[in-house]
């Protein structure tokens, strides 16, 4: 069963992402900030990470950078609000699969996530 890690500091997002992808037979695990995301990646070994950028605690970019420096190549899609060009730049340098812009249309997210999971 494909495993998706949803990282977001909004509990609503975590809850509904779980419900939505759960219905598609995806095993969804969640984390609420960058630090717990890194832990979850090690303990759950997800196939794909959906990573929010702006979060309380460790933000998405720092988590991504730390992940890549440690040599981990887990697939990541970033969820962006309206980040400045240099943040986008930093994400690009760290090998990500895709961007999703807030607010999203779930169907679009579904396409991207399922595409990445089926690769």
């Amino acid at each position, binding site marked *: 069963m494909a495993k998706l890690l949803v990282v977001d500091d*909004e509990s*609503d*997002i975590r809850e*509904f*992402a779980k*419900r*939505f992808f759960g*219905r598609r037979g995806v095993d969804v695990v969640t984390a609420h900030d960058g630090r717990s995301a890194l832990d979850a990646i090690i303990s759950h070994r997800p196939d794909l990470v959906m990573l929010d950028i*702006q979060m309380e605690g460790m933000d998405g970019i720092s988590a991504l950078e730390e992940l890549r420096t440690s040599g981990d190549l887990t697939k990541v899609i970033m*969820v962006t*609000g*309206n980040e*400045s*060009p240099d943040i986008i730049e930093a994400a690009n340098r760290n090998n990500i699969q895709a961007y999703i*812009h*807030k*607010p*999203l*249309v*779930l*169907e679009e*997210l579904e396409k991207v996530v399922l595409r990445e999971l089926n690769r």
Partner: protein
Amino acid sequence: MLLYTGYIFIILSGILLIFIFLKRRRKSNQLKAKRQYQEVLRKASLGMGRIKELKHLLKLTVHVVTRAVKVDYCSVYVWHEDSGRFVLRAVKSIDPQIQFQNGLLADSSLIEHIKGTHNPVYIGSSEFKKHDDYALKLIKDLQLVPAVAVLPCFIDQQLIAVIGLGNKLNRTKYSHDDLMMFSILANQIGLAIENAQFYEKTRMIQEQLIRAEKMATIGTMVDGISHQMKNRLHAMGFITGDALDVLRTKKWGDTPVDMKNFIDEMEYSLVRLQDNIKRGGELTEGLLKYSRKNTENYEHIELKKLLETSLEMLKFKIKLDTVQIRTLWHEANPKIYGNYTQLQEVFFNVMDNAYDAMMQRKNFLNEEGFSPKIEIETSFKDEETHIFFRDNGMGVRKEHARQLFTPFFTTKLSSSKKGTGLGLFVIRQIIERNHKGHVNFSSIYCAGSEMEIVLPVSFPSEILPGV
């Protein structure tokens, strides 16, 4: 016979004495009344200097004058820069039928006469007996106001207000003394008006400062707020999408028809909700982009696109469809080097001013067939792009021309549309300091204005734009 003559003489001299006595008494009564009203006026004018609110002051003025001088009516016209006329600010009249003129033009014979002589005008004075053309014109102007006498209020040689008076209730004429007394009174009132205007102006500048500060605070908050808004919209999108998904993935095979209809309606509503969430997201994004002072972000910009998006934004603030906009694009469609958001703000402010000026002309000059027009022209020469904005608005009075770019200078003082007076200042900062360009503004009063913005096509690399 002699006796008779004696009697008649005594009776006649008695009558004469009584007559003289009565006349004396009338005169002394008159004098008393006069002294009395002079006293009231004197006291009132002393108190006036303390009133800080102009409206209140003018009301009191017409009240006191009608009461003390005992006239049919009294009106006060105060100089109004914006419209270039003396505007009726307060009036009191015994006869409610009388229609007073709303404004007296600065170049009317009456006002020019007053400015020339510095004296009160009285319809019963000897100069009006001549009945020459000049006198007839003045009489006509007076009748138009209407006023029997007009008193000027001068401050430092500047006519700041005029007071119109009706006839005395006892139908006597104004004496020379009366008019002299009035002159003094009028100047007292003038001082009080100036005083009140000064207070009002200071208060307004203070308000503007606070408002500008508030705007700056809001500006810094916008970033945080729009991020928050986005997160909320994001969650809403997620939840709506999930609800839609529940409806769509469930098999509704053998559900009764009305239940199915109900599900369809729910689905329809959720789709619409999703649409709105998406649009809300776009709006917050626009807000965020606009608030970000990404000053480092200088790029080559297509002028035409820039102007078009600025016009797009302007539609949120003003009714552009009441204005004819003509655009003359230079066929090369030159690119300019600059910061998109800042330049958008510049064009926004320019158009905003043009619009205000045209509405002003429409409202104040009341010309038949006036239609507001803006012309935008771009041209290109010597490595510079010139952008002209021409409007056929109210234009600027000569004496204001030098102050326009001063921060907080504004002629938009009415409560409905108060200006901050920061528009042109910001324009100059952005164009001249940040973009190394030029701003030229020229204007003809009551005809229109032209704003020219000159931008270098490329930036000298060693000059880095500041904030």
